[in-house]
């Protein structure tokens, strides 16, 4: 065995192993398993969308077809079609791609910014902490949706702008959590040990502190993912989401809700789709928390 296998491998190589193991632990939480199952289902749907979807998402085939029935040319529509004749099932399937692309992307971006801010505020303290915390307080004092509307109304609505808006609005919240964890962890003796051997602040923040904050952060990330999905849905619903015609669950609900009186299927199915995915993340977060509390 060499030094390399002794240190970095045991730190990072085993990390993968341990991550797998903790997913194994998930088996002990039924709630967490259901959540993971729902998420996995949508991930598979998103990946294989071109194979699963019976029709192209934007093809106008036959309007106002009810679920479980056939159109004028004998096409079968499991969930029916909307008022301009697009297959609802196909649009839901393709729409999962949009959600599962932008939600994790936005969450990840928010985490990168939030963690950087939180580490700086919590570990370096002093002026940096004061300034970052004040900025965070101000951003957080906006009602979230007001902030999104203001940002999107100003910079326009597009996928990337949604990611930017979510990052901007969520990073301070993540910063608060990270800062709190860092304030606790920085007083540990192993951090003092690292300091007494003259480690750089980078090393201490990234090696000694951050990895040990991962537990609560993973749970928070799951919850936040659920919330980001809601946000993307709400923006779509308010007409501030991705520009049409590409399918987006929130947008689908907005487009069809005036038809809801006569054709509830147009709105109800996308509602179920988005709710099930959010439920998946919330259940997973709950399961993970339950497991982490038990150890």
């Amino acid at each position, binding site marked *: 065995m060499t030094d390399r296998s002794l240190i970095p491998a045991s730190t990072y190589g085993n990390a993968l192993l341990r991550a797998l193991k903790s997913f194994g632990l998930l088996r002990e939480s039924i709630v967490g398993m259901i959540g993971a199952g729902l998420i996995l289902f949508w991930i598979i749907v998103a990946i294989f969308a071109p194979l699963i979807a019976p029709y192209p998402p934007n093809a106008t085939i036959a309007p106002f077809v009810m679920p479980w029935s056939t159109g004028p040319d004998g096409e079968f529509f499991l969930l029916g079609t909307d008022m301009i004749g697009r297959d609802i099932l196909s649009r839901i399937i393709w729409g999962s791609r949009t959600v599962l692309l932008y939600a994790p992307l936005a969450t990840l971006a928010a985490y990168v910014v939030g963690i950087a801010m939180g580490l700086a505020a919590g570990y370096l303290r002093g002026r940096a902490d004061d300034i970052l915390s004040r900025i965070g307080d101000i951003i957080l004092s906006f009602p979230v949706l007001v902030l999104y509307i203001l940002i999107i109304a100003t910079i326009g609505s597009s996928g990337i702008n949604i990611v930017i808006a979510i990052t901007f609005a969520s990073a301070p919240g993540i910063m608060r959590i990270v800062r709190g964890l860092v304030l606790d962890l920085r007083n540990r003796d192993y951090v003092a040990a690292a300091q007494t051997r003259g480690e750089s602040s980078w090393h201490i923040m990234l090696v000694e502190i951050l990895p040990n904050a991962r537990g609560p952060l993973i749970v928070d990330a799951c919850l936040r993912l659920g919330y980001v999905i809601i946000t993307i849905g709400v923006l779509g619903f308010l007409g501030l989401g991705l520009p049409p015609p590409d399918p987006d669950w929130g947008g689908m609900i907005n487009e069809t809700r005036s038809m809801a009186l006569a054709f509830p299927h147009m*709105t109800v199915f996308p509602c179920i789709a988005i709710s099930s995915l959010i439920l998946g993340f919330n259940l997973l977060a709950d399961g993970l928390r339950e497991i982490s509390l038990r150890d």
Partner: protein
Amino acid sequence: MLIFVGKRIGFMILTMVVVSILLFLLLEITPGNVATKVLGPYSSEEQRNLWLEAHGYFEPFYVRYFAWLGNFASGDFGDSVRFKVPVADILWPRLGNTAILGIATFAVMIPLSLILGVLAGMREGSKLDRSISIVSIVTTSVPEFASAVLITAVLVFWLHLLPGTSTMSDGFDILQLILPALVLIIYDFGYVTRMTRASMAEVMTTQYVRTAILKGLPYRRVVMRHALRNALIAPFTVIMLQINWLLSGVIVVEFFFAYKGFGALLLEASLNQDIYLIEACAMVAVFVAVATQTIADVGYTYLNPRIRFS
């Protein structure tokens, strides 16, 4: 304590000032854009310059900001481009409508979620606890727009129990209030319930609750006197912060039910680039949010003797 309150209020004012500067920067930094937004895209260069001249837009930036701030403080928010009336004339009635909606929501949601949370947290792991937890996690997972659709489908279209829109155009109607409030309650109560439950469950495992039990106190007294007070400190903050969340929620709900409230107004203003209306709405929204946060902070310290007497 007084100093603490003073500090919090000072911070609140500071936040408002910073927000106002940000808003002003965001919306009025380039006068040309303002003129285009106010006079419409088909106005001529000359018209815009005349308008800018008349409204003092050729002054330096900071002069304009202070003039704007002064007007703002005295209640003059400018005229709405879309409604062609002073902003204040539409803002206050709309805010009143939203306040009614908010109060109705809170009046049901807070007692409901506190009771459920305490019941669940009191005996962690019991059947009641599990069912309450599952229900609250499911309801929080359904976004407001989705639950609005689903509830409307059931109550309005199937059962014909309630009106599907809540414009309140023919005066106040309690029936029209039910659906919007219901949607908000369903989305929000789960969160408060879970927070209360977590806090209660934690308190029930503390050593001082054990002490109270081993002192031989009746269970009722252990819960009511020893656990509850400590357990409600954390949810209090959560509840106050819900007002901030509610402001987001009302936008969706008012939009969906065509309720003539503040949230719908803000959305409409943003979509139409009605800048004076946006400014006023955003400032009001932030004010409400910051004010409730201040109350939450002050209340938290008041509830917690460890902070109050240190």
